[in-house]
């Protein structure tokens, strides 16, 4: 205990004494992007690159402020986020249900798994024309496409998680007379939870990808529409702003899942690289 506390207190003393150095250490991930932004601004100002093709960061900030000011950006973000949320929930929910059935029963696996493996082999964007034919150009095809994108990573990881549950732990459940539903709830689901979260996080990032695909094809609102709109009106600043917002949204939603994962899976005995 004493040995551990010595370096810790020394580190605290060091940060308070050399506050500037500590601040630099904590923010040095921003150094490279910061320099790039300055070079970018300088290059465009100097006229080496057309401001029409590569708007300078200062102009992007103005565009962002304009879009945020008149409320259109929030509208686009809201529409896109809602589509992702609904599509992801449907896809992931179905994947958990089907994955549980396939993972827990050899018979269901023999029945269903080959079909899903075959469906998985289809590049998901190949569904787009069919979805447009069947479901029109309204919300339905977009949400379906996002759900398809979210389904497979969740399904595959969850099935693998259930099938890799330690036989010895299942036996412990057996000793305590757990069968059927109670065995699943108390042994299989908690044991498969780490894999499920891996699947959910992959599924969520794919959901954002398929959202853009869906909105690029046919949409009147949403961030994908903003991208199309920027291209058609020749406004590169709109396109870049949309890209930045998409990156932020993707990162934020992933961080939310990650936070949930850390809270629910604190029991895992994994290598911890420590706070960076």
């Amino acid at each position, binding site marked *: 205990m004493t040995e551990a506390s010595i370096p810790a207190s020394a580190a605290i003393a060091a940060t308070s004494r050399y506050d500037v150095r500590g601040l630099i250490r904590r923010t040095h991930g921003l150094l490279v992007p910061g320099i790039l932004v300055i070079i970018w601004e300088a290059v465009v100002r100097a006229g080496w690159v057309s401001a029409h093709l590569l708007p300078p960061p200062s102009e992007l900030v103005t565009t962002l402020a304009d879009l945020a000011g008149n409320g259109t950006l929030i509208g686009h973000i809201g529409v896109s986020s809602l589509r992702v949320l609904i599509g992801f929930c449907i896809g992931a929910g179905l994947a958990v249900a089907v994955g549980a059935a396939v993972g827990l029963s050899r018979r269901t696996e023999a029945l269903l798994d080959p079909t899903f493996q075959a469906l998985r082999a289809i590049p998901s964007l190949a569904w787009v024309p069919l979805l447009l034919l069947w479901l029109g150009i309204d919300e339905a095809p977009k949400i379906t496409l996002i759900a398809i994108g979210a389904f497979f990573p969740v399904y595959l990881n969850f099935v693998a998680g259930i099938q890799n549950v330690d036989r010895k732990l299942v*036996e412990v459940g*057996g000793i305590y007379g757990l069968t059927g539903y109670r065995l699943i709830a108390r042994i299989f689901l908690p044991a498969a939870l780490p894999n499920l979260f891996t699947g959910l996080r992959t599924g969520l990032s794919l959901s954002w990808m398929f959202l853009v695909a869906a909105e690029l094809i046919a949409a009147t609102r949403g961030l994908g529409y903003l991208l199309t709109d920027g291209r058609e009106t020749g406004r590169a600043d709109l396109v870049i702003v949309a890209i930045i917002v998409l990156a932020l949204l993707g990162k934020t939603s992933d961080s939310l899942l990650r936070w949930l994962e850390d809270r629910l899976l604190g029991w895992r*005995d994994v290598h911890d690289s420590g706070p960076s």
Partner: protein
Amino acid sequence: MSHDLLDLAVTAKDFQSLSVIKNVRFGIDPGEIVSLVGPSGCGKSTLLRIIAGLDTSYRGNVRINGKPPHLHSRDVGLIFQEPRLLPWLTVAENVAFELGRKGRHDPYVTQLLAEVGLGDFATAYPKQLSGGMAQRVAIARGLFSQPALLLLDEPFSAVDAFTRRRLQDLLLSVAGHHGTTLLLVTHDVSEAVYLSDRVIALAERPGRISGQVIVDAERPRDRRNPTLVRREAEVLTLLNDGTNGFFDLSYDLASAPRPWHATRLSSLNFAV
């Protein structure tokens, strides 16, 4: 002979075409501590699995308090070679696994954890425990349902020798306090003799009883007690088919062809 707590008569247990156990009969009275010792493959773990209700494909008659074995029996608890704690539950939740999540506040959990010396670890996760501590939690979990008969399958073989001796004494004191009958499977003859009132030696292929030794030393026992040493020698004799010889391979090795010979280059003919 009739025993009150456990009456076991397994006439045959086959694994595919291999006969694992043939005509094993023994019984245990309440409060006894009995060990099964024998070489690997003598079916001693299988016997425990039968009594615990995990294995039902055998011929014979097993009675625990007059009833056939079944899973989740109130009469029987089982402790494995490894702690087998559920990593997503805290120590207290593992001990009270039988009751589900709500069981962690059960006062009996606190009492058991204090008895195994882990009173401060109720909210810790298994990953924070050492091997010996985890096995102590497993002992507490085995005792939580207050079984009349606690089965232990090589419970201390995965911990170091020092921890093992401490866990043995802990087991004796906790089981004595709760009046629990113990049936222990082990490879370690001195562990069996130190812990038990009776040691049953098994022979292999097929698993059968080669004899039993009654350990008549007073409790609490001193590990240096000469009686223990004599009983240990008797058990070893039983395990060696009634002789005091040792496992001797030297004749077989001497008569076997030598695996390699030095080759003289000049003896080789390279002409084709």
